[in-house]
């Protein structure tokens, strides 16, 4: 295969500058929101003692899951030997790191005591999947950084074995990482919406989809910024196939999860709540995740001619990400809103809202903090594009 040329973004473009300013502003707003939350306490958020994880966690988990999937291009080229994806491998590693940093920032800034981050980094309970995830996240950043070095350093890049070893390590690491993220919920025995091993493969499938959707949108933005054609017709066709397969995989695991609940009488309550009579949650599930985030984009991709077009994969990527946010919202907030089952078969009431569906309305600080995670990822990526040659100069079909 011909040698791939890479480049940095050089042009002083109004669009590029606007992108930086806009995301910097959102990040500042997010930091301000975190300060308000830290100063006044979480009383300024919509979170309470019933919904303990709110909108910041939706964004954080969404970004962390997407981070693992953003490595798709690198894994496809190094691990599966698909050379056509190699030009995007550097970008893929960078995006993976940026998304993870964005997600982790939100997670850390939402802590009740973010000033104790050093405690979290130095005091561990190894029975906690959360503690393991700290290693998995930090390790992922280190492994992908090494992966990028192996791809970009002139000397190391000449050794295919080195790249292969680091590529495989990163591939296994990302699968373990997303397993760990899914298991944050899957290993919770207390709540009926979770407590299911399928959460891990569901999150892995979701990561493949979100990560690729982010990659497509970044490439489309670069094409717009630099008037290039990185998403060629052939690449659009490949992305189309991958997006469709990943979306179907998410649907498969989602359906299996709910069908399992349908089969077990003890889970009928939570199933009805999430899919039928839970108010905003069934609406977000059916309209957000299923219609906007699955059926419509899959239908677009299935269209014989338009489905292969550049605009089709860009639009569907946006829709898949909207669906992904809805999916995370239903899993994280909906799963908590359903009351704990202290006395199965009985009605329970108390001054602590036992037996009641928990109310939750996200506040502005939460939204800004969550959104700032996305902006951190975008800003880091945009700045890195200017500093180092992550982007292929040309794609030959």
């Amino acid at each position, binding site marked *: 295969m011909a040698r791939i040329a890479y480049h940095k973004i050089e042009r002083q473009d109004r669009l590029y500058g606007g992108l930086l300013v806009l995301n910097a502003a959102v990040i500042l707003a997010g930091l301000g929101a975190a300060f308000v939350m*830290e100063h*006044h*306490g*979480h*009383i300024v958020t919509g*979170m*309470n*003692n*019933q919904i*303990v*994880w709110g909108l910041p966690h939706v964004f954080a988990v969404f970004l962390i899951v997407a981070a693992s999937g953003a490595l798709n291009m690198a894994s496809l080229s190094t691990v599966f030997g698909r050379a056509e994806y190699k030009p995007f491998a550097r970008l893929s590693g960078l995006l993976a790191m940026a998304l993870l940093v964005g997600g982790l920032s939100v997670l850390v800034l939402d*802590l*009740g*005591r*973010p000033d*104790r*981050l050093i*405690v*979290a980094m130095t*005091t*561990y*309970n190894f*029975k*906690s*999947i*959360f*503690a393991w995830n*700290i290693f998995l996240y930090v390790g992922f950043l280190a492994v992908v950084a090494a992966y990028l070095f192996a791809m970009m350093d002139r000397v190391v890049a000449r050794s295919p074995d080195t790249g292969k070893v680091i590529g495989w390590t990163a591939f296994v690491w990302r699968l373990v990482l997303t397993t760990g993220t899914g298991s*944050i919920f899957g*290993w*919770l*025995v*207390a*709540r009926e919406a979770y407590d299911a091993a399928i959460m891990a493969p569901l999150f892995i499938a979701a990561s493949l989809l979100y990560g690729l959707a982010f990659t497509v949108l970044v490439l489309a933005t670069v094409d717009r910024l630099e008037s290039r054609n990185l998403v060629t017709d052939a690449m659009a066709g490949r992305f189309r196939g991958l997006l469709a397969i990943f979306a179907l995989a998410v649907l498969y695991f989602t359906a299996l999860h709910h069908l399992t609940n349908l089969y077990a009488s003890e889970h009928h309550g939570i199933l009805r709540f999430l899919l039928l009579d839970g108010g905003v949650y069934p609406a977000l599930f059916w309209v957000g995740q299923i219609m906007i985030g699955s059926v419509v984009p899959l239908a677009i991709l299935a269209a014989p001619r338009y489905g292969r077009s550049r605009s089709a994969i860009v639009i569907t990527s946006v829709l898949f990400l909207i669906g992904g946010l809805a999916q995370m919202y239903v899993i994280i907030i909906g799963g*908590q809103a359903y009351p*704990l*089952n*202290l*006395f199965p*078969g*009985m*009605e*329970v*009431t*108390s*001054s*602590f*809202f*036992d037996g009641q569906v928990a*109310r939750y309305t996200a506040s502005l600080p939460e939204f800004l903090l969550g959104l700032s995670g996305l902006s951190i990822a975008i800003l880091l990526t945009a700045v890195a594009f200017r500093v180092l040659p992550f982007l292929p100069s040309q794609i030959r079909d």
Partner: protein
Amino acid sequence: MSCGSKGDKACGSGHGCACKTSARADDFDASRRAFLRGSAATAITTLAVGVTLYSFSAAPAAARAPGDKVNPKTRWGLLIDASKCGDGCNACVTACQTENGWGDTGHPETDAQWIRKLTVRNPKNGASFSLPMMCQHCADAPCVDVCPTGASFKRADGIVLVDKHTCIGCRYCMMACPYKARSFVHEPVTDQKPHAPRGKGTVESCTLCVHRVDEGRLPACVEACSDTAGGAMLFGDLNDPTSEISKRVATYRTMRIRADLGTNPGVYYRNI
């Protein structure tokens, strides 16, 4: 050797001695005084021991000196008789609030509740009962398992606590607790009790009044329930077969809430 001397074991001083040796009257008086003193001392000692035993009969154990290790052979627990728990009674909750300094701030959805009263109703026939719900001090506590920093921990005597110095406020323990026993401190707290430190941004829950237990006293809820309510709560060492709680748990049919989850709670309930 004269009668009443120390070496006269057969005679013994001043105990109605029938010794026929002549004795002076003052010797007799001295002997009588000694007898009276001895009797009084014996009576006082006996009475004091009795009173002492009686006064400690409701307490679980002797006080633990600061620095002494917690006894790992002990497992503190509660037995709650729902049939004695009044539907409208809130004595245990009020006592806990007073003891530990938490309460109503006008924000019911974010206010901490270390202990709460549950009303449980059978929808089929309307039968209902009431009971207090607090941290169940599980032997295999999910909150302890999931805590990333180990801030949620179980003391050697079974009391589950939160180390306020290492809690980062991630709330994963609240996600993991099957009993909704934990609260997150959503706003700054004032007027804290020295024995029950609280902190904005950290998680808290029932400590089983560990500060009182270490002093050999009963948890505030148990004491209040005994003093002013139905006496529905019994505190004691579940590992000591001679303790009242162990005897009752062994005698009566009891249950633990969501025992199916295998968390091995330290709080038992009767008549539910």
